[in-house]
């Protein structure tokens, strides 16, 4: 394993931000290569932990000869945000994942994106570990942008329950995944739950999915149990359940649970008087993929997303 410096930025009063990548050189020059990017934001606890767990696995838990293709892991890009509880780039609050492919003569975050992208753009496969932008908890899943270059078939190899095949929005054109695809890599985002405490059930699932993928693409000689045969979800396959009232949100069910049409799945309580002001019921049979992550819910906020079945 080589620890390589991806970039370094000085600060007026803070210690320099030094971002490292962990490079595992493969034993087989014909094997494909993969790069994994962890936390780009300060609230990305699972992306950070899953990436660093992967470094540990490759370092300490697998024979070196079984690493066939080159693997580069960059667990964190944004230590500055992680260390002070900020979400985005602490000075100007810009989102690094909206700066790609980057620009070496531009603003600080454009330069960071450019240096990062330079280090990873030539890999065959790319994984960006992300969390949702909005206030929502979801089950771990693949987000694959409809860029015209995306590869659904290989995305199945992670074995997640769900691949969200997402319509391209204008702001997606500056994301890492999109630009990675444009440069010829097969790139995927793994959307991790945004909890601020590590849930090892989720982190295990995500780590296994990455290892399963690397096994199936013969980047590592390591065969895990099969995962799910992923369901590909488009916008139409998701039912959105909004809360017509604001207040304290008490969900009865969690992402990953199956629910039936008409089932009570949560309630909203008046924050000052404690009475139930709204009962949330499932409008269809399906599996909850996503749920509002804050106990204080806003009027018209999306309380649940349910992937329809039946």
């Amino acid at each position, binding site marked *: 394993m080589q620890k390589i410096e991806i970039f370094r930025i000085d600060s007026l009063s803070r210690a320099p931000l030094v971002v490292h990548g962990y490079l595992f050189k493969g034993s087989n020059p014909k094997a494909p290569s993969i790069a994994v990017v962890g936390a780009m934001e300060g609230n990305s606890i699972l992306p950070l932990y899953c990436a660093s767990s992967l470094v540990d696995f490759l370092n300490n838990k697998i024979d070196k000869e079984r690493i066939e293709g080159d693997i580069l892991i960059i667990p964190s890009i944004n230590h500055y945000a992680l260390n002070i509880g900020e979400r985005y780039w602490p000075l100007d609050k810009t989102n690094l994942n909206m700066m790609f492919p980057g620009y070496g003569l531009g603003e*600080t975050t454009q330069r960071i994106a450019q240096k990062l992208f330079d280090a990873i753009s030539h890999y065959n496969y790319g994984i960006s570990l992300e969390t949702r932008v909005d*206030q929502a908890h979801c089950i771990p899943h693949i987000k694959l942008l409809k860029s015209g270059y995306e590869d659904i078939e290989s995305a199945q190899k992670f074995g997640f329950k769900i691949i969200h095949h997402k319509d391209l929005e204008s702001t997606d054109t500056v994301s890492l995944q999109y630009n990675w695809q444009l440069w010829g890599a097969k790139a995927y985002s793994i959307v991790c739950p945004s909890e601020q405490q590590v849930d090892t059930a989720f982190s295990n699932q995500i780590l296994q999915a990455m290892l399963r993928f690397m096994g199936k693409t013969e980047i590592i000689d390591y065969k895990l149990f099969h995962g799910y045969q992923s369901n590909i979800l488009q916008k139409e396959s998701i039912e959105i359940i909004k809360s017509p009232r604001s*207040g304290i949100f008490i969900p009865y069910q969690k992402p990953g649970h199956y629910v039936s049409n008409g089932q009570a799945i949560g309630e909203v309580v008046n*924050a000052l008087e404690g009475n139930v002001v709204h009962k949330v019921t499932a409008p269809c049979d399906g599996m909850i993929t996503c749920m509002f992550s*804050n106990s204080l819910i*806003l*009027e018209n*906020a999306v309380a649940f997303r349910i992937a329809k079945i039946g």
Partner: protein
Amino acid sequence: MTTTEIFTSELPVGERFAIQRTRFEPQKAGSKKIKRISIVSGIHGDELEGQLVIYLLAKWLKENSDKIRGIIDIYPAVNSLGVDTITRGFPLYEVDLNRVFPGGENEFLPGQVVHALSHDVKGSDIAIDIHSSNIFLREIPQIRINKEFSPTTLPLAKELNCDFIWIHDAVTVLEATFSHTMNSLGTNTLVVEMGVGMRLTKEYGTQLLNGILNLMQKEGIIESDEQFENREPFTSEIGDVFYLNAPCSGLFVASIDHCAVIKKGDKIGDIVDPLTGSILAELFAPNKGILFTLREYPVVYEGSLIARIFGENDAEN
């Protein structure tokens, strides 16, 4: 004059969130079709210059209600939660509202907010979206125009009494802005950038007020004997914009005033290190022209924008 809520949402704990609009209409309703203009500000909660401009405009309209010949809608604080809390993005979500247009009724709250705004402004002949840069940079009063829409928006921009018109190429990510959305919906929309975040620049407020009154007069939305000041702007068509970014991190100390006419090689400022009393970098103008953007917030990282200079195309540049 009527004030309406164009979007409301109950917040979780005993508070109601609303976006408000005030409408000014002619005293006597006529039968002929009248023009409508919408003035929007506060999409970014830390930009306050628009508050002053809209205050001055509302005051003028109230005092001159007999001169109103069209519909004037004002929306001073789109991101009202942000305006009152020094928050640029939409609080809780930390998203830039000017990157989630056109939004939709089924989207997350910021998406619903921008949808409500574009839905309400839709049908206006003209819209003006007033921004005040951010807390980092100070700007002279300028209009930003997407090349794609410039045939219709440029003539209007020239009536706004601003100093500079910057015509830029189309960028995909900017399709998620208010101005792109409204221009696509047929409302000629202009973006004004002026001043600096979290502050008011009084003379700019009066300058843009005059511009808006001048434009409304030309468009027949108001009818007054007054002649409103309209200065001749320079446009980016006749030159280029040069960028000066910080070559290193540190504390930026400017040596010149904002909006200065500068020569190539003029000193712009230093980046210094207070801990050791050393100058880390001396910054000089890369070309001659007008320095229309200047760093206001002194803490810089490598890459932070320090200045933008507009220079005419000539031998020296």
